[in-house]
């Protein structure tokens, strides 16, 4: 017979092992992509799959040479960080105004903002394509930054709104009593208090931009293409060369995956969208 303590330990062991098993299964495709990128093409398609082999870096060199990885990585960084930064600058004041000075219309405005996200991108693909062409913005980072900014603005405002709303009102009133202007209030009181919320909002926005594929595929060609579009070019003929494909994929995902791992605590704490009291 096990006593209660042993029983509890045994239970933790069982659930823990089960959790590990599922986590490893779900992570397997990423692990496999990573491993395959160090194989030769022959090893990549060998059956049974080879787990022990002499790793090679050739694939990475070939990817950089053939599709100029660094240029596309630069495009990804510029578009995702740039648009997130601009969206925050536009979104923070709006979220602040709605959270601290709510009117009867506030809820409607928030729902309307979210509803602009319900417009499927395909519904406006043609006009956006034509507008970008007429403004000379096809295949430019500017067009992507503008679109990503507008695309994520509703979600950013919503997340920020739910953080700001939970800030203690007394502190703000105290600041107001001391004669703080709205600008002082935002910069000196609200921002420092909600830095956690703002950073997790920024994180989510950066991840969504980095992985955005629809506009990147349709509006860019070679110059402004971010990594999502570069990878798509490996889909057909080069798709047969798995080791190179894996190397390109690893290079495209590694920055954001590592970034996400480092920030996951922040992300886990932040992603409630006001859904938790």
């Amino acid at each position, binding site marked *: 017979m096990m006593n209660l303590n042993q029983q509890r330990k045994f239970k*933790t*062991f069982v*659930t*823990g092992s089960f*959790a590990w098993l599922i*986590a490893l299964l*779900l992570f397997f*495709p*990423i692990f496999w*992509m990573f491993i395959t990128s160090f194989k030769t093409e022959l090893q990549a398609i060998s059956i*049974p*799959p080879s787990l022990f082999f002499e790793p090679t870096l050739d694939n990475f060199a070939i990817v950089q040479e053939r599709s100029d990885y660094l240029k596309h990585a630069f495009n990804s960084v510029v578009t995702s960080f740039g648009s997130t930064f601009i969206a925050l600058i*536009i979104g923070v*004041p709006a979220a*602040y105004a709605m959270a*601290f*000075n709510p009117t009867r219309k*506030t809820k409607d*405005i928030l729902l309307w*903002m979210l*509803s602009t996200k*319900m*417009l*499927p*991108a*395909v*519904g*406006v*693909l*043609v*006009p956006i394509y*034509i*507008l970008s062409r007429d403004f000379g913005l096809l295949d430019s980072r500017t067009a992507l930054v503008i679109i990503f900014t507008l695309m994520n*603005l*509703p*979600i950013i405002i*919503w997340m920020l709104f739910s953080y700001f709303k939970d800030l203690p009102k007394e502190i703000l009133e105290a600041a107001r009593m001391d004669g703080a202007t*709205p600008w002082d209030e935002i910069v000196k009181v609200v921002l420092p208090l909600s830095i956690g919320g703002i950073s997790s909002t920024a994180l989510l926005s950066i991840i969504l931009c980095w992985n955005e*594929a629809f506009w990147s*595929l*349709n509006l860019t060609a070679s110059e402004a293409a971010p*990594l*999502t579009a570069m*990878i798509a070019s490996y*889909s057909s003929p080069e*798709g047969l060369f*798995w080791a190179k494909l*894996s190397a390109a*994929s690893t290079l495209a*995902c590694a920055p954001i*995956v590592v970034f*996400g791992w480092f920030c996951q605590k922040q*992300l*886990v*704490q*932040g992603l*409630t*969208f006001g*859904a*938790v009291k």
Partner: protein
Amino acid sequence: MKRSITRLLMAPSVILLLVWMIVPLSMTIYFSTIRFNLLYPGQNNFVGWMNFEFFMTDPGFLPAVSNTLILLLSVLMITVVLGVALSALIDKPFFGQGMVRVLLISPFFIMPTVNALIWKNMMMNPVYGVFAWISQSLGLEPIDWLSDFPLMSVIIMVSWQWLPFAILVFVTALQSQDTEQKEAAQMDGATGWHIFRYLTIPHLSRPIAVVVMIETIFLLAVFAEIFVSTGGGPGYDSTNLAYLIYNQALLQYDVGVASAGGLFAVLLANIVAFFLIRAVGKNLTV
């Protein structure tokens, strides 16, 4: 704070979103009523409802609508059910809890194009893929996933991507669950299942509403996974509305019909949003 300042602070967001919504949408409406084929420039006369007729009698239309809805509902079901189960599983501390969490949420950081390429080639390829190897080792016939079960393959890829998002939100929500309440229930002899059913699930109702709403926004517009993996085929078996419209506009150069299709997609999104917001809206306090 004065009302004028509130308005001033909100103005940039509201104006930008208004322009972002109205300008392209009215252009789409205009294009949908004229003949507009890039192969025949200069023949842009008014055609009334013809583009809509064309789009809705396209052989791909009905499959695309049903595929869009099947994809949406299955991925929502899979991610919410598994998301709740998995986040409850990793809620209590165990060895390597942090590591397990990192592994579980990693697929969310993988871009859709890479996601599709990994699954299409290394996992689902009928000759060299990992799944084929597993089937062979078990003495079974390997399955050609992308040709035989194209829509299911896309559902697997998209669920794999969005399950981590659901886990992220639910894990956060579970951390705020009242432990005293749970302990009290345990004292009173409630089983683990009862606690899960009557305390955890109700606690998660608002996070579930949030996950459903955000995922719906993205799932109605799934494109890259199909573009890279099945190309909508075989036939129309894995074509959704987004892909069908893309096909009309950029492969057949028929902007008029594509615009009509775009408007239909907007309409469908609004119908889905209407029902969803009614269903989960009471749990959403903004």
